[in-house]
């Protein structure tokens, strides 16, 4: 195979591959979990949870929330421009984020936080 052919093949694979990944990204939704079902197996994957805020801690640049559903509770870290003022104790939220392990505790780094209407 000469270099020109190899270049064409690589270009086609790269472009079609990247478009396919973007389409996959568009259709793939994070899986919904009850908090008690989140284990180390989910570390580094994006998941969705629903629950009530039971405590908040406001630190420079981040907001640390403890979120509880009817099974258990977990810490959610909100790094960016979420509606921080509206995130108060007792508010029901839906969160999408990546599960991480920090000092041997599982927590969720929030990518999206939606306030649920029932709160």
């Amino acid at each position, binding site marked *: 195979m000469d270099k020109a052919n190899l270049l064409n093949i690589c270009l086609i*694979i790269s472009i079609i591959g990247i478009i396919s990944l*973007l389409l996959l990204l568009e259709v793939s939704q994070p899986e919904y979990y009850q908090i008690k079902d989140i284990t180390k197996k989910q570390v580094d994957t994006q998941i969705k949870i629903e629950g009530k805020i039971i405590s908040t801690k406001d630190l420079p640049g981040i907001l640390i929330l403890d979120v509880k559903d009817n099974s258990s509770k977990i810490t959610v870290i909100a790094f960016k421009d979420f509606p921080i003022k509206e995130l108060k104790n007792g508010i029901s939220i839906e969160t999408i984020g990546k599960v991480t392990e920090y000092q041997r505790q599982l927590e969720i780094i929030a990518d999206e936080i939606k306030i649920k209407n029932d709160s």
Partner: protein
Amino acid sequence: MILELFIAILIGCFFGIITGLTPGIHINLVALLAFSASPFLLQFISPLSISVFIIAMSITHTFLDALPSIFLGAPDADQALSVLPGHRLLHQGRGYEAVMLTAIGSLLATIATLIIVPILIPLIKIGYPLIQKYIPYILILASIFLITKEKKLKAWALFIFLLSGVLGIAVLNLPTLKQPLLPLLSGLFGTSILFMSLFEKTKIPPQTITAPRLDKKETAKMISSGVVASSLCGFLPGLGSAQAAILALTPFKKTTPESFLILIGAINTIVMIISFIAIYTIDKARSGSVVIISKIMGSLTFSDFIIFLIATLISAVIAFYLTKGLSLIFSKLITKVNYQKLALAIIILVTSVVLALSGPIGFIVLFISTALGIIPSLVGVGKNHMMGCLILPVILYFLL
């Protein structure tokens, strides 16, 4: 405790040999495996020892990755720029000398950086909050600067930067993909280069062992330029050794292959040391292995940081002599080993690791990023533009 830390350094150096000599097996992968095993390991050893192990491995890696880069033409992302001058010397039978130039650069850079740590700490502490707001704009300017530095193929450089960037955005946001950086970076900077070396089937001439010839003034210029450029790039997200090297070379009109190799060796190690300093001063992890250290240690105390610096110095001295010994062995073996078979074996190993840790989607990402990683070699444009896979997502994260 001291004995435990020293053993951790020795084991770290041993694993640094494996990651440094094996293109495609990155320190991040071993650090991640150490982290996965940490609940078990922490029953017997302290978090500090695991961190020191990772530091020793990382430093040794920055010395030894010059060997596959120069002898096999298979660099990792940080050594991508050293291939051409290193290979030029290899084809003159001076492979050993080329490797030793990078090792000398790394060792001198370690000493120089450790000396200026008392200056770097306040500089980063004060400077980072001032520029934090402007990070996306600095990254945009840095990317434009690096693309325009390409002499002829600016359009290709931009195309590869953008394509890598979109790939990075897709891969880093896929909800079901575990360890997304593993297939992404292994494909762009590891398996793609191994594939090209299978394709090109180069023959290496017999090697002679010649001591590196050093011009003291030129060496001092390269080390100081490397320290300044690495300090600027090392604590910004997305920028690494390849970008620092281009920045460091900007003031010089002409460089010899010898001084270029000293600079590359120096920068590779300084960027790693700066990432240790960044985690202590601004609590930001700027490399995969440092992310693992921060997860294991939580917050760092001043005495932890001093132990890290001592471990860095000891590892650098051990790594220097390891590089010397191993490059002597490589010089003798290089004409005898069937490199094609070796490259194929490493491709199979990396693919298996990706399948095990990132699953089938990880394999697809590895396949796509390998194809993309081959393009710069074919069109003759710098591989550093593929760092767009991290730079573009970081820019968007800050801007959106």
